[in-house]
């Protein structure tokens, strides 16, 4: 038995795992402060991918259209020389690197360092598609882009406000923490277009229209201000820009916003009173807040609500952006983002600290973001992309452009554990190790830096990503490379103040929550206690603007996309688990029973769903959980890639695509 961390969601459940004769045994770790021995179905049943015989086991280079197995030396020599050629011909910004929130902190740190030493800030990863708007929003209002409290501290909340998060399916162990507390008398408010299990357990459920978040949140704040339920002392001593914000809020009487949100004023009033009175109150949100053209504004609205009621800096209160990937907090912390150096040091600001640390001149112009890289490949300005552990051919918005972009590249390198749909298009494929075959650290959604340990050997020639990147840095940049994840971690401590006090040996197995530094050597459970990271908490007046996806005569339905309980993203891992695949074997579109009846659609019937840019055909799943006028499609299935329907509309602050609101028509 070896104690490690679940490779799926950002909860970061600790578990004991044993591999014997190719078979895995798993148990939740009872002493864990994160999951107290509990796991969800993905933890229990989702680890078999690691021993699949379909793993890629040798480096491969495409020759005359076919993959040929080569040695590591040859593969990496080839990659390095091609990248250097491209740099020579077109400059470093003709190359982009895509890192991965499935990889460790050490690997993400290395990936962004390689990009920057190579001379470009074109390094980004899937945080762009999930919580880049959280980063952009919370840095502006609070100064730190992370959950303000711990999972454990949620047990001290009086009220939970869950908006845009299907918590029991996407962060199951956090969802159940809340459900257990509601049975002990705590209050739960849920706002979601779909009637989730959280909604079934809620005291107040506001089933609102996708994309109307700002209107809904502003109307709650309108009630709070009108009824004088705001925390005047907190506002005075801890915040700034209140007056300008309050002026904007005046416009959002719940009676006015009802036509936008679809929520009756009565419910909004109740929710506002509960949230503002039964304190401490915690807000938890997921992709329902972030994946919009106004994602950053949604996040700032959430922040306004917490600031208005003094629900920050105290145990049980706070804002919890529920991070999707196991290490998306960490990969963002590491600076695998086009606009941030490690520790969220903004590109364009003074980066001399990194120039000293890495002993070289560094690029200081914001790079291409994930959502822009494939467009740049289509237009021809980008010539090479190096992808580590992502499958954009399934997961990116507007995938036909993604494919077009890839075909237009001079060099496309993919480092992954399986021959994914993306890897199949590559010029070079590098076999990587899974999270169960690796050493390093992950940072979970509550900022807990946890160590993982290898519980099995990678198959064949597959190697840990840090090793591959370290070798590449030797060949590409003439660097001296690294001998272990710990050696990289020691450098991370120098680069990121919040990690500076973490001892690699001491954090196993329980982990520590950053900031860990001289003044808080044991870590920090609650952020912003005395003051906000940026000083005063900033109110930002946010005006409601409609989403770009608006129902019309031609496209009368609103499509919202997401995940289900049993699968993970493009299914590379979960679709190889017998039980998980049995539970959710094929694509589907959820449609309300009323709409299905009107359109003569039977449960299980294959229907077409078409947006202005693409179409998929898939079986209908009729349900009461979704209101009329809305359809939902999970993005796991290569058989019906819903991202063919999602357009290029981006949030202007964070460049996150609008995965949650797409106007579509339904063709029976």
């Amino acid at each position: 038995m070896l104690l490690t961390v679940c490779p799926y969601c950002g909860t970061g459940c600790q578990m004991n795992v044993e591999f014997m004769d190719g078979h895995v045994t798993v148990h939740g770790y009872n002493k864990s402060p994160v999951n107290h021995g509990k796991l969800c179905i993905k933890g229990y049943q989702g680890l078999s991918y690691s021993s699949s015989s379909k793993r890629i086991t040798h480096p491969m280079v495409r020759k005359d259209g076919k993959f040929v197995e080569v040695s590591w030396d040859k593969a990496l020599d080839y990659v390095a020389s091609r990248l250097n050629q491209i740099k020579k011909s077109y400059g470093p910004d003709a190359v982009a690197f895509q890192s991965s929130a499935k990889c460790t902190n050490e690997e993400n740190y290395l990936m962004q360092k390689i990009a920057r030493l190579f001379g470009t800030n074109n390094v980004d990863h899937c945080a762009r598609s999930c919580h880049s708007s959280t980063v952009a929003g919370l840095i502006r209002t609070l100064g730190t882009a992370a959950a303000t409290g711990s999972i454990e501290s949620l047990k001290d909340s009086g009220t939970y406000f869950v908006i845009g998060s299907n918590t029991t399916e996407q962060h199951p162990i956090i969802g159940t923490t809340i459900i257990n507390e509601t049975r002990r008398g705590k209050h739960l408010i849920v706002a979601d277009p779909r009637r989730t299990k959280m909604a079934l357990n809620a005291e107040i459920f506001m089933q609102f229209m996708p994309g109307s978040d700002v209107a809904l949140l502003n109307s709650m704040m309108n009630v709070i201000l009108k009824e004088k339920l705001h925390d005047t002392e907190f506002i005075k001593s801890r915040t700034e820009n209140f007056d300008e914000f309050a002026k904007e809020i005046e416009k959002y009487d719940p009676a006015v916003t009802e036509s936008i949100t679809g929520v009756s004023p009565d419910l909004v009033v109740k929710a506002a009173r509960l949230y503002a009175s039964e304190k401490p109150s915690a807000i938890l949100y997921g992709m329902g807040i972030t994946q919009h053209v106004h994602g950053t504004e949604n996040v700032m609205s959430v922040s306004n609500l917490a600031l208005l009621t003094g629900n920050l800096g105290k145990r049980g209160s706070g804002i919890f952006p529920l991070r999707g990937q196991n290490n998306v907090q960490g990969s963002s912390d590491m600076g695998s983002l086009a606009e941030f150096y490690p520790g969220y040091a903004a590109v364009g600001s003074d980066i001399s600290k990194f120039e000293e640390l890495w002993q070289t001149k560094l690029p200081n112009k914001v790079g291409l973001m994930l959502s822009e890289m494939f467009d740049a490949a289509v237009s021809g300005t980008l010539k090479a992309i190096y992808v580590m552990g992502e499958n954009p051919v399934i997961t990116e918005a507007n995938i036909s452009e993604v494919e077009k972009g890839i075909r237009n590249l001079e060099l496309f390198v993919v480092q992954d554990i399986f021959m994914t749909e993306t890897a199949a298009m590559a010029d070079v494929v590098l076999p990587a190790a899974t999270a169960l075959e690796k050493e390093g650290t992950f940072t979970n959604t509550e900022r807990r830096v946890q160590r993982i340990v290898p519980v099995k050997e990678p198959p064949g020639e597959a190697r840990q990503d840090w090793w591959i990147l370290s070798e590449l840095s030797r060949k590409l940049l003439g660097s001296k490379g690294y001998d272990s994840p710990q050696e990289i971690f020691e450098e991370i401590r120098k680069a990121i103040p919040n990690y500076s006090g973490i001892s690699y040996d001491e954090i196993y197995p329980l982990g520590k929550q950053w900031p860990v530094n001289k003044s808080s050597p044991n870590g920090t459970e609650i952020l912003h206690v005395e003051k906000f990271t940026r000083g005063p908490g900033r109110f930002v007046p946010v005006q409601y603007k409609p989403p770009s996806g608006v129902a019309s005569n031609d496209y009368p339905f609103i499509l919202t996309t997401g995940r289900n309980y049993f699968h993970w993203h493009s299914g590379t891992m979960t679709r190889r688990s017998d039980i998980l695949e049995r539970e959710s074997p094929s694509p589907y579109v959820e449609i309300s029973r009323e709409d299905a009846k009107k359109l003569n659609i039977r449960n299980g019937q294959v229907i077409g769903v078409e947006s202005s840019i693409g179409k998929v055909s898939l079986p209908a799943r009729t349900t009461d959980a979704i209101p009329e006028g809305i359809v939902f499609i999970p993005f796991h299935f290569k058989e019906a890639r819903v991202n063919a329907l999602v357009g290029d509309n981006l949030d202007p602050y964070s460049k996150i695509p609008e995965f949650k609101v797409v106007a579509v028509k339904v063709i029976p």
Partner: protein
Amino acid sequence: MIFVLNESEMETLFQRIHKDYETFGSVEESGEIVFDRIDSFSEISDEKSSYAPKDFLITRSANILEVPKPEKKAVFGIKSCDLRGFQIMDLQILGKDLSYTTRRENTMFVNSVCTEMCHGGFCTAFGGPVLDKYDIQVMRSGDEYYVQASEKFRGYFRDFRPSDDDPFTGYNDQFSQRHGKIEADGIENRIKWSSSLWTEYAKRCISCGACNYSCPTCYCVDIYDDEDGRKQEWDSCILEGFTRTSAGNIRPDLSDRLRQRFFHKYKYYKLSRDEYLCTGCNRCVDDCPVDIDIKEVITHDYTVE
């Protein structure tokens, strides 16, 4: 026959068994009690293991086209509730499931009798910590160990002291008196199809499968084919796919599936095998993320609904 052994004699006993068997035991690792290979009796923890050692006989996943190799294993430190799980399972799958049967016949269990009730445990509802059937059964009393062995393993006890006392007889009654007992008898007649318990549980259950995976009596597996062969995998009756058929699902709602689990445990198995499919170990309660307590299914007053 009952023997009384001191610590060093227990070590001698262990070493004799160790010669013939690959030895495993419940040991502490990172604050958890897990099963691992051991070379000495002194490594064994007195605490109840963090999980039932079900995977000694039914591995979480397996290639079932491979004929199981008989491997002689001895497992020390297993608590009586977990051993009883196998004995109840035997009624259904012994002699039918080839790999279970091979492993069962080649694995010896040295079960230890609890002297205190574990947190939440309710084994007294189903007898108690002393079992009638065992390979070797151990009860610790201070520095001494009272040990019973079945005929097959008596040979390991040559030259050990027979005990004049019999602490095993009557122990379960005393244990029940000391720690209380919930009344399970007759639950097969009381449990109610239309009870509101099932919908209440369904409202919060997240279908994680923990109740099945943690249970020392749940034996259901899924059989499937993949590129490497024919496989089996631990299954869970809480999952929708468990009873999905081409003609629809016979238990479409989560409440149907939760009810099925309890009806199987407390009614169907009792009717078909004359045993409750439960040992009172409380593991399903310990591992449930939403605090569903199977004891409530037994104690609930179904007459007032």
